[in-house]
């Protein structure tokens, strides 16, 4: 009986529902996070001084505030200035902005690491500015940024559980409900933990595959 608990249809469907919400949180947030990260990272390297300043300030605050605090600001704080977000919307907003700030660090580092000699060589071959960025800078920067950015996404998978703290019932939230209803706290959170473990492991595996695929001999991570 005990072992079969997690095979009951309503439990399974609750877990599946939670997992689906989590996935809906994770995928858009990581996409927005990457977009923000690349944009802000590029601005921090190539922008004019004012833009750089603003971008640096954004990163400072969004990496400095705990994610929980940010989520509370979006969900409980914004209504005070007349903006009402659903807990789901506030979560995606919070995850994207926070993740983007972290992502931009890796992107910035990657852009900075592409040696100026490479740009000059491209220019000397007659590449335009845009073409230089597209065909020389980006492919190199992408490889350098990939491990860090990929790890950020793995972090995001785990941090998506914090949506529960602003009442968005995703996987952890469903788990909390199941556990409280059944008083099976240990088993339930073991199962929930295992599901996250699968998600993070699969993400890590994909990331490793991607890194191997893009491997270039002699192109060191940090040179």
């Amino acid at each position: 009986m005990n072992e079969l608990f997690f095979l009951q249809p309503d439990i399974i469907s609750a877990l599946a529902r939670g997992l689906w919400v989590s996935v809906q949180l994770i995928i858009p947030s990581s996409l927005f996070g990457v977009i923000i990260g690349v944009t802000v990272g590029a601005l921090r390297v190539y922008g004019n001084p004012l833009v750089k300043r603003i971008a640096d300030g954004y990163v400072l605050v969004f990496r400095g505030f705990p994610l929980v605090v940010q989520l509370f600001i979006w969900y409980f704080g914004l209504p005070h200035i007349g903006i009402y977000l659903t807990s789901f919307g506030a979560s995606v907003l919070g995850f994207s902005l926070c993740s983007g700030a972290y992502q931009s660090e890796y992107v910035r580092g990657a852009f900075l690491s592409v040696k100026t000699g490479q740009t000059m060589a491209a220019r000397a071959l007659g590449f335009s500015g845009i073409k230089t960025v597209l065909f020389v800078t980006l492919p190199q920067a992408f490889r350098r940024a990939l491990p860090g950015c990929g790890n950020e996404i793995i972090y995001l998978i785990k941090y998506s559980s914090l949506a529960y703290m602003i009442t968005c019932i995703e996987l952890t939230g469903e788990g909390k409900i199941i556990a409280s209803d059944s008083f099976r706290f240990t088993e339930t959170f073991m199962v929930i933990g295992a599901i996250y473990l699968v998600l993070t492991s699969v993400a890590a595996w994909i990331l490793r595959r991607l890194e191997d695929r893009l491997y270039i001999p002699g192109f060191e991570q940090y040179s």
Partner: protein
Amino acid sequence: MTESLIVLYGALPYLLRGSLVTIAVVAGAMMLGLVLGIHLAVGQVYGGRWLRRVIGVYVWFFRGVPLLVLLFLFYFGLCSLLQINLSAFTVSVIVLGLISSAYQSQIFRGAIMSLPQGQLKAARALGMSDGKAIALIILPQTLRLSIPGWSNEYSIVLKDSAVAYALGVMEMMARAHFVASRTYEHLPLYFAAGFLFMILTYLGTKGLRILEEKVRIPGYSA
């Protein structure tokens, strides 16, 4: 606006007392993570195949499961299952410490592996046991090299400690929310909490940078 400031001013001592709780949680977790992390790292580098495998699983587990889930698992699950009565504070320190030990072990492992391995041979050749050689020769250098990574880990654990609010630990975040929900001054209070976290990050990392400079080995650039 002025009203907000008055509320904030009144709440500040209360928040600051919360910062002491935050500091206690983080200090406890970092220390637990340090002690466990060193052992895990040494085991992972010098241990036998089985030990390495077990440590690998440990690290994989604690790096792959969300903090919040582990807090719930330990506090609501394991504590009552094993009939041990631990406070939310203690559970938070333990869980944050276990997670941190997994991350710290990787910092230390990297540092150990970056050391020239001949020194271990030289220590053995002098008649040192492996334990002595690791404690006297390998670890002092490992810990020095690990300070930047450790500093980064500190800033992560510090921010993660806000999640302890979910168990009702009255740290900064919990107190900010507590006051906010009574005074309806959410934004100023959250921002105050956020900035306090930033200040703690700054102070901690600054302190570690000073420490790093202080224990730097002359002539050695790594």
